[in-house]
């Protein structure tokens, strides 16, 4: 007969494990089975690719256990997460190995290796006693770090840490008890049996010295019960707490490696991503709304938290610049902006009664050149950009056709970001027709908002899509636009949509480096600040926007540069209101440098 090693004290632990795995299994099945057809197809093709699966496993190891992305953001935080996650993982793995080696059978019930010392107090398997003690110490050090973080986030360079739900607090309390209880239980075991390594053994010797030996077995029994209860309690609270992320992150990594993506029309993959948020709070500090004290409970972590619990309010979803600063530091790589858009779309039930019939009455004349330039709505409000492009084109001897000079249609992104997806789609469809019919092969735009929309959402039959900074850089590289490096200095502002949105960081810098001295601000490239003008936020008043812009401008003024240069008409408008330094578009800077007269 198989030995089941049953002891009453393992009941809480067993109950916890059974509840946890049945809940998680149900969740997985419901998530995967409700994925859209296209995502499931993607999954099926990915799962049979060895390279993809190995890659995903490697990523899961790196991010779920070693937390390397957190390491890049914050070293101390990395230690906390890694010592807890990787330490615990190693405790389980080595515990299993020790039990297998000791019992000389590959099939060991899970509770036997978890409570190994209780079952086999005299067991000695090589250096395992030492290793297990060392690992326990490693995990305990992470626990101390976690306690410090909860009460003094500033030790980690964080201004704020996450506010927790009731489920989080329950799970956290259980988690914090697990390892100290394990230490106590194992050390009392050592006290009774005079065993244990440097940690449990020494502590056990202390107990043996201090306490009457008759009391030790009773205390020991109670402690093992407590240890089992705390484990069981933690497991039961996992599905209702942030610790759900432990089990959601691995399937997320796999599905992502199969190229499944979140959609602005939410799918169950959105739910999976939401569940994978560990509420580490790394997204809170980069948020300028938090830094400026404008809103303290609308950051991505809170949106996902509310969304998981009961559905976030539209007001919460609307209060965001969608600058992407949080997404760029999220260690789990959650598609925060897409998820927020999907919440807006879902909550903004009443569709606009606006009549978009006029879209069909908009026509553009036939293209006069293969290269089309699209100003976009914001570009129309900053006409000096198009005027500069005209001058640059003449100087370079290239022919540019100004698509929306007479009339044009919005790219649809403001509607999209507001969650009005149907309106955005109508604009997209009409624009696609107009662009494709016009016969251009290259579409240049000075607006990163439009460019991102064209690249991510539009189907344009292979029309090449360029930002005007890329177009100018090409003209310079091809030798068509001769420039001399002048004395002026430029501090370059990375627009959110162009930098974090599209990864275009280098071309504007090459262009500015060619015409003058390039200055970098304290936070640039993927850490660049949002100008505050973002179309995505639907509730900021002008004073709040100006406050954000003033903070950004202060960084630029500190460089002492002659000009603040940006390459987004929206940023230009927002920043120029808040500084005495002249704010110009990159095209204006180039036009000044080549000294061309107005066309």
């Amino acid at each position, binding site marked *: 007969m198989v030995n089941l090693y049953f002891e009453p004290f393992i009941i809480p632990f067993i109950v916890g494990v059974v509840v946890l795995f049945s809940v998680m299994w149900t969740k997985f099945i419901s998530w995967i089975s409700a994925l859209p057809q296209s995502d499931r197809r993607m999954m099926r093709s990915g799962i049979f690719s060895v390279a993809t699966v190995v890659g995903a496993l490697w990523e899961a190891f790196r991010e779920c256990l070693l937390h390397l992305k957190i390491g890049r953001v914050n070293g101390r935080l990395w230690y906390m997460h890694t010592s807890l996650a990787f330490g615990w993982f190693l405790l389980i793995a080595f515990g299993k190995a020790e039990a297998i080696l000791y019992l000389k059978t590959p099939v060991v019930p899970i509770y036997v290796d978890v409570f190994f010392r209780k079952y086999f107090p005299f067991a000695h398997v090589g250096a395992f006693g030492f290793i297990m003690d060392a690992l326990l110490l490693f995990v305990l050090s992470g626990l101390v770090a976690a306690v410090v973080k909860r009460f003094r986030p500033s030790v980690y360079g964080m201004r704020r840490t996450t506010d927790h739900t009731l489920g989080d607090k329950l799970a956290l309390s259980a988690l914090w008890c697990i390892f100290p209880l394990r230490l106590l239980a194992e050390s009392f075991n050592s006290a009774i049996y005079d065993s244990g390594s440097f940690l449990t053994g020494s502590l056990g010797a202390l107990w043996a010295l201090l306490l009457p030996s008759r009391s030790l077995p009773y205390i020991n029994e109670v402690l093992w019960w407590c240890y089992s209860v705390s484990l069981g309690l933690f497991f039961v609270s996992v599905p209702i707490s942030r610790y759900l992320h432990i089990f959601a992150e691995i399937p997320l990594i796999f599905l992502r490696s199969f190229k499944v993506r979140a959609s602005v029309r939410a799918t169950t993959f959105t739910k999976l991503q939401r569940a994978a948020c560990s509420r580490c709070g790394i997204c809170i500090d980069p948020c300028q709304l938090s830094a400026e004290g404008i809103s303290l409970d609308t950051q991505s972590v809170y949106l996902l938290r509310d969304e998981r619990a009961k559905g976030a309010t539209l007001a919460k979803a609307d209060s965001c610049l969608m600058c992407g600063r949080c997404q760029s530091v999220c260690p789990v790589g959650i598609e925060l902006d897409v998820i927020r858009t999907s919440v807006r779309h879902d909550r903004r039930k009443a569709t606009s009664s606006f009549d978009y019939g006029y879209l069909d009455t908009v026509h553009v004349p036939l293209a006069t050149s293969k290269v089309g330039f699209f100003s976009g709505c914001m570009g129309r409000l900053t006409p000096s950009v198009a005027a500069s492009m005209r001058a640059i084109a003449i100087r370079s001897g290239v022919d540019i056709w100004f698509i929306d000079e*007479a009339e044009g249609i919005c790219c649809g992104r403001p509607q999209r970001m507001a969650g009005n997806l149907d309106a955005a789609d109508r604009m997209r469809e009409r624009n696609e027709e107009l662009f494709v019919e016009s016969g251009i092969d290259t579409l240049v735009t000075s607006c990163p908002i439009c460019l991102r929309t064209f690249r991510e959402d539009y189907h344009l039959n292979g029309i090449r899509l360029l930002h005007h900074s890329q177009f100018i850089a090409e003209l310079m590289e091809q030798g068509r636009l001769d420039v001399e490096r002048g004395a002026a200095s430029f501090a370059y502002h990375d627009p959110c949509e162009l930098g974090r949105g599209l990864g275009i960081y280098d071309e504007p810098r090459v262009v500015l480096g060619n015409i003058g001295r390039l200055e970098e601000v304290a936070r640039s490239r993927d850490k660049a600040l949002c100008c505050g003008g973002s179309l995505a936020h639907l509730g900021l*008043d002008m004073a709040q926007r100006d406050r954000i812009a003033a903070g950004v401008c202060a960084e630029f003024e500190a460089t002492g540069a002659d000009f603040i240069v940006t390459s987004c008409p929206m940023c230009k408008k927002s920043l120029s*209101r808040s500084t005495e330094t002249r704010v110009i578009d990159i095209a204006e800077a180039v036009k000044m440098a080549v000294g061309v007269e107005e066309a």
Partner: protein
Amino acid sequence: MAAKRVIVIGGGVAGMQAAVALKKQGVTPMLIERDITLGGKLCRWDRLFPSGTRAGEVVSPLVEAISETGIRTVLCGEVSEIVGDDSRVEVMLTDGSSYEAEAAIIATGFDLFDASLKEEYGYGIYPNVVTSVDLEEMFRSGAVVRADGSEPRSVAILHCVGSRDRQAGCGHCSRVCCITGVKQAIELKQLYPGCNVYNFYMDMRMFGSGYEELYKEAQERYRVNFIRGRISECSGTMDSRVLVKAEDTLAGRPLRLTVDMTVLLVGKQAPASNAKFASELGICVSSDGFFKGADCFDGATLTSRRNIFVAGTATGPKNVGESMNEAVAAAIKAAEYVKGLA
């Protein structure tokens, strides 16, 4: 007992009027003006609403009165700092000189909104987009023409440029632009009867005596077109005309219009120096940046400092008459105050 002195900062109509009134009250005023001449913004103006009086007919008598009564005047005097306590005021200029008195009247006026900040209207980009001030200067010079010297046959006048526009950082109403727009439209029609004039407005705020009549006259006699709706953007055309895009909010339809010239009615803004002087003196500015009187009624020219008075557009947008009358009020209050000193 030495004569009591009051320094008047600002030599526009309000400052000059205050100085003259102080003199009449038997107080010794002193006038500090940063420009090389007295007269302030009115020097750039041609005719005044609603009567059509030449601006010079208002400015000249004041300048003469200043010189006839021997009021000490410092020209090209840019104030760098105003200091003092409850019993004296010291005004320091950027050239290093300084003047002391028992009290001061601040009549530093307003700044014009920089139209190039509303880049979408193309001021400084398209040659035939001008401001209301540019147009006044054209009226003064007698040559109201486009950049190429030709006569405009259609003109769009845009109200509220830098007024009631929170995005431009000026939420307040500048009060006088509506009637200025009406006046300039009529003047254009008088000059070029065949010219089509379109005024784009949000609301027509015809608050003054004779304003509403002028507005009616513009419509009925001069056939000026008033379109309710702000221009969203201007763009240049190949033949240097200006394409105006707007929404006619009464008809509820978008509107596109090509005109020979666009005039931007620029608003009145509080000078940046207001906040600096206010903090030096411990007096208040309103949320729009203009100096704040002690109250909205009898204390409109008083401040929280008993020897500092304010008058004219330094306290907010006003027309010429209102500025001049407020200057007299401030002068009376200031004279009462210094005469009451031991």
